[in-house]
């Protein structure tokens, strides 16, 4: 029985890992875009006050995403379009990815913003007086300092994502918790559910090690 449960949980865990990897792959770059949006100074001046529509809209978006539960977002994205426009439901897995990517991009964008804003102005000025272009300044000098600063908060979010994948269950995506729950219904067994904890622990432990190693690698300089 133990072997059977383990194999079945591994199958569910495969889906968990897939959600995790794809979410990360899309939300890390998308977050940078959202970050540039919320820091955008594009706009016009009305009565001595500067209004930046791009920044306002992006910030409102981040507020909505961070201000509502991810579980609710999942349900809205999966059922919402069908209820509003009477379209067919999108595949469950796609809905999960959309919800997770959007949610994590919003969180990442704020981490990036904090990282970029914490680089002292003197660094930009030093680049400017040395004749560097804006692109050279960002990619050759600023970026590395931002990366170093955001690794700890990003690690935190990434570990949270491992566990958030379990929310996919609410729209019946077959991930590890779902596969464990099947044993409650079919065999009256509760321990497979507890057993899933070992999978999460092992994976987040591995990630902690990797991220710690990355942090150490960037320890050669101090800011």
């Amino acid at each position, binding site marked *: 029985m133990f072997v059977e449960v383990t194999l079945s949980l591994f199958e569910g865990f495969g889906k968990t890992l897939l959600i995790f990897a794809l979410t990360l792959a899309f939300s890390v770059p998308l977050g940078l875009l959202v970050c540039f949006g919320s820091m955008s100074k594009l706009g016009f001046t009305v009565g001595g006050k500067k209004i930046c529509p791009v920044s306002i809209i992006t910030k409102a978006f981040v507020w909505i995403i961070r201000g509502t539960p991810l579980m609710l977002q999942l349900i809205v994205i999966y059922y919402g379009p069908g209820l509003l426009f009477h379209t067919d439901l999108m595949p469950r897995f796609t809905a999960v990815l959309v919800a997770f990517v959007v949610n994590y991009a919003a969180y990442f964008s704020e981490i990036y913003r904090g990282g970029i804003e914490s680089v002292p102005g003197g660094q930009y000025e030093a680049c400017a007086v*040395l004749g560097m272009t*804006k692109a050279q300044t960002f990619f050759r000098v600023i970026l590395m300092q931002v990366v170093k600063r955001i690794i700890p908060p990003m690690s935190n979010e990434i570990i949270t994502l491992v566990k958030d994948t379990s929310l996919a269950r609410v729209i019946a995506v077959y991930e590890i918790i779902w596969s464990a729950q099947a044993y409650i219904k079919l065999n009256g067994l509760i321990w497979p559910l507890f057993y899933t904890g070992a999978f999460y622990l092992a994976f987040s432990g591995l990630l902690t090690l990797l991220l710690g190693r990355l942090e150490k690698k960037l320890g050669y300089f101090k800011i």
Partner: protein
Amino acid sequence: MPQPMLEVKNLAKSFGSTEVLRGISFSLGEGEALVIIGSSGSGKTTLLRCLNFLETADAGEIVVGGETVWRAGDSLSEDEIRERRLKFGLVFQSFNLFPQYTVKRNVTLAPELFETDLLREKYGGKSAAFREEKKKLTDRLDRQADELLKSVGLSEKAEMYPWQLSGGQCQRAAIARALAMSPDVLCFDEPTSALDPELTGEVLRVIRELKNSGRTMVIVTHEMDFAREIGDKVVYMAGGVVEACGTAEEVFANERVKRFSHGGTIALDD
């Protein structure tokens, strides 16, 4: 009379309703050192920042070697500003070294980026000629950095990172970095204000050597003895205007400057 290296004419700058510079004019010959003294808030730093295009003045003109690099009303593209500001170098109070690079890389980075762009324009980025020239450039900049670091006494620290250096060493590295872009006029914004007296000495020694090698410099400082010693010209600024200007002897003989440079004691006597 030989043409001055740097001429500043009637430079004015306001932030909102605060007038920080109210018509600053001075000129400086090649190889001369101009020292700017004055209390905090007198506009010294803003003046340096205008010279280096970190701020845009509202009125006036800046001429380097007979060539107008900035005039009020000019609308310069980003590339033009980039090219013209290289007439000036700036050494900051807080060093602003790039923490992720070694001392040597701090020195070579900017000239490498700048000159690689020029090579890419000339040869195209993928040609064999480009790669060959790039190699030569890297070697040349490498040697230049070695020489510059030797001249500021940091040969041994070339492969270290800024956090491993003392404040005085950081500032000397920053001086080498500014020199690597071969500016016509090197500006210092209170280069020793973040250093204790012992470290101040080693930075001042480097500036003194630059003076002896004929470097044209504009130095904002609170070190009065140093100002007196090194300044071919001294400018005393107060309230955004040049209150006194001339040789060190002339300026330090001025009553208001005396009161400023002896600050506290006079105030107590009153």
